[in-house]
């Protein structure tokens, strides 16, 4: 998949492939140390955050955590 920033495509590809390896071979096997792809993630993030600004995306809205908080939507009339 392409990145939102054309300039970030190569950085994204490199990071994604590192991440997929880390996820399969480390994380799913119980190793939570995520330093393996950290340098690639950092340069990719610098690029993508800039691209998001260029696209006038609300960064604050993106930073909001909803999953796992009480702001999550609730299933109506939960069976009790």
């Amino acid at each position, binding site marked *: *998949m392409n990145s939102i920033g054309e300039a970030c495509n190569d950085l994204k590809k490199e990071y994604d492939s590192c*991440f997929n390896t880390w996820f399969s071979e480390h*994380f799913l096997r119980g190793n*939570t140390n995520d330093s393996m792809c950290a340098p690639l993630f950092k340069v*990719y993030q610098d690029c993508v*955050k800039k691209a998001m600004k260029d696209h006038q995306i609300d960064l604050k809205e993106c930073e909001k955590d909803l999953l796992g908080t009480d702001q999550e939507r609730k299933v109506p009339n939960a069976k009790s």
Partner: protein
Amino acid sequence: MPRYFESTTVFNFSWEQVAQAFWRRYPNPNSKHVLTEDTISREVRGDQLVSKRLLRKTNALPKWAERFINTKHVYIMEESSVDPKNKVLVTYTRNLGFAKVMSVTEKVVYRESENQPGHTVAVRSAWIDSQVRGFSKAICAFGYERFKKNCHKMAGGFNHVLMSMYPVHQHLTNHATAAASAKNKLKDAAKNASELAKAKAAPIYASLHPNQS
């Protein structure tokens, strides 16, 4: 009041396979509307991997909706958490912007199937909401129908990715896809039948094993 929708999909792949394929879900033949995909935050919290991805999609709308939304693109925020110990992947997805006109929030919980080893059950919940005075009912109804229709496509697209990543399954999956929809319908009937069968089998089992009382 938001419209609520729920559906369950069974994937003929292990939870680990589904979790790995989740990150490579796009592109797939049913995802032509997804234009870009970026991870914008990711960290390990405790034992869990918590990520956010930003997706950019085309937004095909009916003519009447163009008076409310005049953009061809929409951004989607996808939060996720992966818990490898308990084998649970949760995704929480919502549209950014135009949330007052129509907001679609989707939560999917992927767990290892309890009664079918090597299978993964995805329970999808969706909330469709609109705050446009006088139109919210119509907009919700439209969003609800569209979501319902797309549900099948989403599962199909995901299955396509799973099959190309784990082709050993290929010969099984055609059968499995057809069986999956039938399975849902038959699930309750099967449950009842298996209870009945168990009840009937108990005396037979007992009679074959005379040592057990």
